[in-house]
């Protein structure tokens, strides 16, 4: 193998690129610092700042209530994990029902479509109220009346509609020739879906799917309106003691810290698939 050493021209190019990178980094750092200093000065010069600082940023108090918040967080995590499994399962079934062909399946396709249309349009808060107060109101024997379970039902109903659409987009993005190839080998419609179309579809929609789960993670906080003693309701109770809002700030920080690993994981999965939407690249 012949030895290669960069030509003078290449040296000059590399040097130019290094200079340009250094200058860009310097400008970006300087402008960021200027912005935050200015923002801090503006906020601190407002007349209400001392009171706001006392109420929202009393981190001594915040540190005291943190253990209680973290214990309550376990409820949110449980809700999230249980909902996620159920959502994945039901969404895949709904997406599959919508791919069934032939007039015999029209009622099933119609119902699946109607369900998705309705629950994608309904605000989660309303679904929580209707399920949380309406379902027990029926006094149906055997119907759940624990706010924990009712909250999960509402989350699953709403998110399944979204995730089913994500799956359907993935299924439709698999080229029809893949299905033709599977059928030509003698696989049934169901088998071609299960062994050929779904595996490819799921891989393609993994980044948007994980994005929906980041969103679900935050929305678990909404079940607090049904009286589930989760992190948000705990923060609310803490606030009621001395009317300081620092518990909300702490809860917010906990959620941010909780979602960052999932967001980085989403980026990583996307990058591994050559999808650079979230990180950007040379072009």
């Amino acid at each position, binding site marked *: 193998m012949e030895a290669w050493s960069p030509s003078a021209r290449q040296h000059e190019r590399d040097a130019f690129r290094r200079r340009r990178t250094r200058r860009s980094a310097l400008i970006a750092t300087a402008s960021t610092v200027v912005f935050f200093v200015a923002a801090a000065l503006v906020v601190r010069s407002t007349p209400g700042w001392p009171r706001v600082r006392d109420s929202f940023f009393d981190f001594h108090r915040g540190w005291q209530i943190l253990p209680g918040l973290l214990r309550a967080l376990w409820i949110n995590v449980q809700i999230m994990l249980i909902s996620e499994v159920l959502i994945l399962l039901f969404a895949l079934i709904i997406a599959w029902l919508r791919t069934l062909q032939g007039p015999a399946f029209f009622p099933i396709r119609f119902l699946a479509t109607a369900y998705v249309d309705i629950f994608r349009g309904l605000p989660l808060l309303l679904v929580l109220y209707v399920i949380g107060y309406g379902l027990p109101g029926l006094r149906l024997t055997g119907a759940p009346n624990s706010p924990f379970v009712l909250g999960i039902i509402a989350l699953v109903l709403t998110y399944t509609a979204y995730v089913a659409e994500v799956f359907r987009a993935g299924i439709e993005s698999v080229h029809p*020739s893949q299905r*033709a*190839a599977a*059928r030509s*080998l*003698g*696989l049934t419609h169901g088998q071609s879906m299960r*062994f050929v179309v779904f595996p490819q579809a799921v*891989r393609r929609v993994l980044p948007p799917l994980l994005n929906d789960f980041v969103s679900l993670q935050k929305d678990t906080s909404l079940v607090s309106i049904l009286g589930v003693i989760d992190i948000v309701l705990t923060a609310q109770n803490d606030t009621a003691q001395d009317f300081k809002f620092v518990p909300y700030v702490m809860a917010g920080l906990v959620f941010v810290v909780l979602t960052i690993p999932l967001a980085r994981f989403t980026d990583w999965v996307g990058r591994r698939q050559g999808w650079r939407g979230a990180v950007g690249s040379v072009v």
Partner: protein
Amino acid sequence: MSAPLLSVRGLRKAYGKSVVLNDLDLDVAEHTCTVLIGSSGSGKSTLLRCLNLLEVVDDGVIELDGVDITDPRVEVNRIRAKVGIVFQAFNLFPHLSVLDNVALAPRRVHGVARRQAEDDARAMLDRVGLAAKAGARPDELSGGQQQRVAIARALVNRPRLMLFDEVTSALDPELVAEVLTLIGELKNEGMTMVVATHEMGFARKIAEQVCFLDGGRVLESGTAEQVFGAPRAERTRQFLGRIEEAGRL
């Protein structure tokens, strides 16, 4: 001559108002090769897709081994397993390894145990000269190798009839030969096949019967010498003339 393995009578297929196959007749004897030629849109691909029941025909009869496979009461998945098809675009399953591509149908359609199916698949990959690539993903292979895997995937079902739909049209000229050689070997082993192709030299070498499709029917058919050497219909002469101009005859 015994009854043909494949017999098509009065086949019709339309997409909306455009009639692609119109009263088409075709006979294919066992252990012979029939080559379909004709311009794009003449119905070659549609005919092959109908023979594999990937399309529902609008009228006519397709008999395979004396059984009318266009009857809605036949079990389509069993019939499809008896008829192998190889596509222009390979259509390998990108999420499966080469070995799993080949072993999928035996395992799921024929219920062969995993070990046995993988042994059979390995043997078939060996047959097409790709035993070393069993663990690779389809996108790690060249076009010619992918197409040979697609052929192995169809052959492992032990089909009575093989259909080839312009299988070399998407390949670099250098890779065409390896695929055509393989098809030639299958022919010599006695496989019955219907081949849609623009490779006229190959057609001349391999075909017992050449059919020129035009306007959704077989306009002219005969031996390669007849159709290429002394075409009867004006339309066939035109088509072959153009192919000759393009330097492909």
